[in-house]
């Protein structure tokens, strides 16, 4: 069986909420000799991306995405220790995530955390009702290039403006990028700019590409800053 077939079968377990079936499948793949790091990159990751696409096409529900995240966590637990030994790749980067102040809808954020971890990011999850200063303090502490703020409702989404203000006031706009997400941004894409977000992902699988893009922007900013330094 080729790798894409394994990945399609894993996707099928996600859509059918068959967590046990997913575990059996991954055990079979490993027993067939595929190394853990390739299971993550070539079996799990494409399946998660496909779940994201199905969500985008309004063909997948939160329940199915949730199952996909749980299966991703299971596969990570099963494969990460061996994959870590087999690979010298460091994490793609560090991301700080949380629900913004006054927002207590954690499900989407948790799914995003699982998807990001599966994609190779080091995720620091601050939980619900996180004040703007805490996001920024944590990002500075762990040297994260991206903070992700989640909000479910229009009212709480507007609290993300405080986070934008804190990032800008501390002169960190070039070093810390603000990703925003949550149901309300899918309904009102114009809200991303209104709250000062640097970008959003319409589904959990797309969060990987968003964080990569935002992190790359900070690297470019750092490069251009370094180039300017000698002329000062």
């Amino acid at each position, binding site marked *: 069986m080729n790798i894409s077939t394994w990945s399609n079968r894993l996707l099928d377990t996600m859509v059918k*909420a068959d*967590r046990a079936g997913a575990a059996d499948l991954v055990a079979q793949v490993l027993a067939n000799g595929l190394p853990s790091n390739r299971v993550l990159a070539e079996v799990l990751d494409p399946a998660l991306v496909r779940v994201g696409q199905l969500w985008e096409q*309004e063909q*997948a*529900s*939160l*329940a*199915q995405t*949730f*199952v996909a995240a*749980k299966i991703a966590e299971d596969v990570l637990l099963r494969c990460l220790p061996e994959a870590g030994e087999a690979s010298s790749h460091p994490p793609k980067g560090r991301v700080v995530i949380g629900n913004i102040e*006054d927002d*207590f*809808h*954690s*499900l989407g954020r*948790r799914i995003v955390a699982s998807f990001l971890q599966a994609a190779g990011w080091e995720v620091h999850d601050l939980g*619900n*009702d996180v004040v703007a200063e805490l996001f920024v303090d944590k990002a500075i502490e762990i040297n994260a290039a991206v903070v992700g703020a989640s909000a479910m*409702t*229009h*009212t*709480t989404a507007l609290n993300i403006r405080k986070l934008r203000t804190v990032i800008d006031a501390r002169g960190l706009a070039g070093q810390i990028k603000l990703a925003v997400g949550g*149901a*309300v941004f899918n*309904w*009102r894409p114009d809200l991303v700019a209104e709250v000062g977000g640097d970008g959003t992902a319409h589904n959990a699988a797309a969060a990987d590409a968003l964080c990569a893009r935002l992190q790359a922007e900070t690297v470019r900013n750092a490069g251009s800053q370094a180039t300017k330094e000698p002329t000062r």
Partner: protein
Amino acid sequence: MNAYERVMHTLQGLPADRVPVFAVLGAYGGKLTGTHLRTLYRDAAAYVAGQEAVQEAFGFDLVLAPFDYSALAEAFGGEAAFFDDQPPNVKRPAANSAAEACALSLPDPERTGRLPFIVEATRRLAGLYTGRVPVFAAVPGPAAFPSLLMGLDAWMETLLFNEVHAQALLELTGSFFVRWSNALLAAGATGLIVTEGMAAAEVSPRGLFAERLRPHLQAMCSQLRGPWVFHHTGGRVNQVLDLLPGLPNLVGVAVSSKDDLAEARRLIGPELLLIGNLDNLSYPAATAQQIREWSRACLEVAAPAGRFVLANSGGDIPLTTPPENLRAMIEASVAYAGRNREGA
């Protein structure tokens, strides 16, 4: 024709002077009376005064009892968070796991926490508006109810991966759903708005709703002592609408702004009230003219088949919404009726 007659005629498929219009304006009442939402959602007199102010300012065709599920979460042992600009929300659920949730005691609608406030506000509103304006009370759907005890993520995990605990929780919360709903009906609510979030396409696949959740909804709603309206809770529900006709005591269906009204009518058949579906989030920034146009578009699609109520789609309308945007909904209904009379 007053609002009560208008709604009752519409419900029965009889001619009415115009299409009834409704907007969720619980917190907006506090804005009109200058009452902090911390007080509005604790004090029956303050809440009722807010709804009187809403009625006086706009004259909508339904009045809403306190729409505050954080009070239910609180009554089970959770914690509510209060805000300046939106209704309270659940800050911390009572339980961290399904096992903990299964061990919780059921609250008493007449005694526990802020539940008596909701019952009393419903009673006062019913007394105030009997025969003039229908009073509806919102209750969380029986399939979504366990999420108030343990959070949506824990409930989702239980529902999907722990059938024994899921069933136990549905039974526990189901019995309270029936008791709570009937307490609000006994307090004088004309009907209930049952917000069943687990039915939305964004939340559950159709199969999960059809096979596991609808049977529970059917069993619980057969015990209600009054009519109820199925509400989408913000998500697309056209995927399950054909499964709703025939549910006990069901008189109407409220659909989201992303659902197609014509398709919704086709799916629910001619007998049920169809309610919807202006986008909640657009209210603050839209002009009154835009609201009129969007309202007219809804009316042109859904009113000809009858049994239609024009309404916002979602929870409380944001407090930053200008009053003229709310009046624009009723103006659109009046204008639509006028055009029809001229046409006839």
